């Protein structure tokens, strides 16, 4: 088992008159192809941790290793590039661009990356939507979709550039039980394909379907039922 993403003593403090500690000394390794559920009370720093892991935010101290490589020295452009190529985000609200059809939303990251020909992009986007049972909605605007459909469209967009990491922040928060279970099943399937999936959820039932459960309180890890050991990580980095 290889450690794809590693938080090392990760700390994020929001500066201000009263500094707020969002994440406090988190050490967590995420194995490639694993599905981790993160839970914890509101305000415990789950989202903040996800932003740090996903190159959206920079830690105050500590660091994030991506495939063993430090990321602290990367500039904004390089981090944007990493998000484009390696990470797929799914948020609680679907965050689709309202003027664009579902298909165009899914095409957006591909067009930015521009690794495929336009017809190949379309074919890939349609294949992703089909796999999520969204093929019939490709031409619709986000406003014309149900909540579950929007979230699946958002997942399709997150998968557009075939990312190694899927970071989902309460992706089921706005969904009913049936749709929530479906979304988690999809995330689980993505992990089976070899992607590293990290999902924040309040729902213990859904968390139970993941490979591993991590619990945060006040920005700290208070429980982790399948920790990736430090030694595994060191082994990885040694040769």
């Amino acid at each position: 088992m290889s450690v794809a993403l590693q938080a090392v003593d990760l700390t994020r403090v929001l500066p201000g008159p009263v500094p707020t500690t969002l994440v406090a000394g988190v050490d967590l390794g995420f194995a490639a192809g694993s599905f981790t559920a993160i839970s914890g009370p509101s305000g415990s720093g789950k989202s903040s941790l996800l932003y740090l892991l996903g190159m959206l935010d920079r830690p105050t101290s500590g660091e994030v290793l991506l495939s063993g490589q430090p990321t602290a020295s990367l500039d904004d452009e390089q981090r944007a590039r990493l998000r484009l190529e390696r990470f797929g985000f799914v948020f609680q609200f679907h965050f689709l661009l309202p003027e664009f059809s579902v298909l165009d939303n899914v095409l957006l990251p591909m067009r930015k990356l521009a690794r495929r020909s336009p017809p190949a992009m379309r074919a890939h986007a349609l294949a992703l939507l089909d796999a999520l049972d969204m093929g019939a909605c490709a031409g619709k605007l986000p406003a014309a979709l149900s909540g579950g459909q929007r979230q699946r469209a958002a997942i399709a967009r997150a998968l557009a550039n075939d990312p190694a990491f899927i970071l989902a922040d309460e992706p089921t928060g706005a969904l009913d039980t049936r749709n929530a279970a479906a979304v988690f099943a999809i995330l689980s399937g993505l992990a089976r394909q070899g992607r590293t999936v990290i999902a924040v959820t309040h729902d213990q039932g859904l968390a139970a379907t993941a490979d591993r459960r991590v619990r945060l309180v006040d920005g700290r890890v208070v429980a982790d039922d399948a920790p990736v050991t430090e030694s595994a990580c060191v082994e990885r980095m040694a040769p």
Partner: protein
Amino acid sequence: MMPLPLTIALAHLLARKRQTLVSVLGVAMGVGVFIAVGGLMQGFQGYFRSQIIETNPHILMTDEIRQPAPQPLQLLHPGAAVAITRILPRDPVRGISGAGAILTALDAMPGVAAAPTLRGQAILRRAGRDYAVTVLGIEVARELRVTNLTKDMVQGSLSALATQPNGLVLGLSLATKMGASLGDTVVAATSAGGEHGLRIVGLFNTGLEQQDQGIVYVPLAQQQSMQARPRVVNEIHIKLADIARSIPTAAAIEGSFGFKTAPWEETYARVLSVFRLQNLVTYGATGSILLVAGFGIFNIISTIVLEKARDIAIMRSIGLAGRDIVAVFLVEGLVVGVLGVLAGSGVGYGLASLMRQMPSPGATDPSQRLLVVQSVALYGLAAGLALATALGAAWIPSRRAAQTDPLDVIRGAT
């Protein structure tokens, strides 16, 4: 497939068609007025310039000396602290001395034609009435090489002065006023005394009142005798093959011969400075319409940036870089600008065509229409200004869009 920033920019603009249309109309109006008014002014100024250039010598040498000659005391002690006050340039016998040699020298210069003239005042008498005129005594053969008057001759000819020693060529309107016609005799009196019978051998109509009413031509010898200044000329009129070289050529001529030699730009410096002021006011006024249009663009793009804060954050989280975001909003400004330029070019063309149908005020020929210049350069200038304004107006909000931290939006929304 369209470039990504263009796709997003068009989507933003199409989602607010009415506001976009208003911004485009603002730019179109600025561009249209710029083209129409600029063209009208260029037409007007161009007409005046060509009139000046056609009816006047390109370079005029007169019997004045700008700088007093160096004084003997200065020549004796070069570099010494000598102060001599109240020196005037020598002005004893007005006239260009050595005009013959100067003309020979000018003839040797390539692209230069020169003609000697004696300018003086006279009173023309006819049927008991007096008409004050400026008389130019000309050497016909040379004058024909520097003047455009021949094309304005309506009766007789300028060259008839060569064979008629007491010939007179004058404006048709002056002759009409005097009740004289071709072949008639008028009497000229000058301050030198004496009366001279002159026979009308040619009539011209330049359309310029000053010329038609105020200037008459006689043979040089006749004028010299009328003014009692034998063998004197006080002006040399010079015409250039290349008018663009008038300033350096005039300076070179003055340098060699000492007499004040003014290019037409100097003689008409006041007209040209009025043109410059006119340009400043016109382009300033029309440019400020574009500036207002720029505020319109600034306004719509700022609004979009504010309203699309969430979408911008999403695009950033997906992996679009700051400069992709800048590109989106610059393209929005550019799209408004380009549409405005296209529409404005149409408006400008339409306005210019309309104005070309309108009679030219003050023209002697009632069928003359307003001159409106339509040039690629004018459209290009209008387009360039409009696009620069549009880009400038889009630049500020697009910087702000790229600088806002997407996390602020994402944190607030989830």
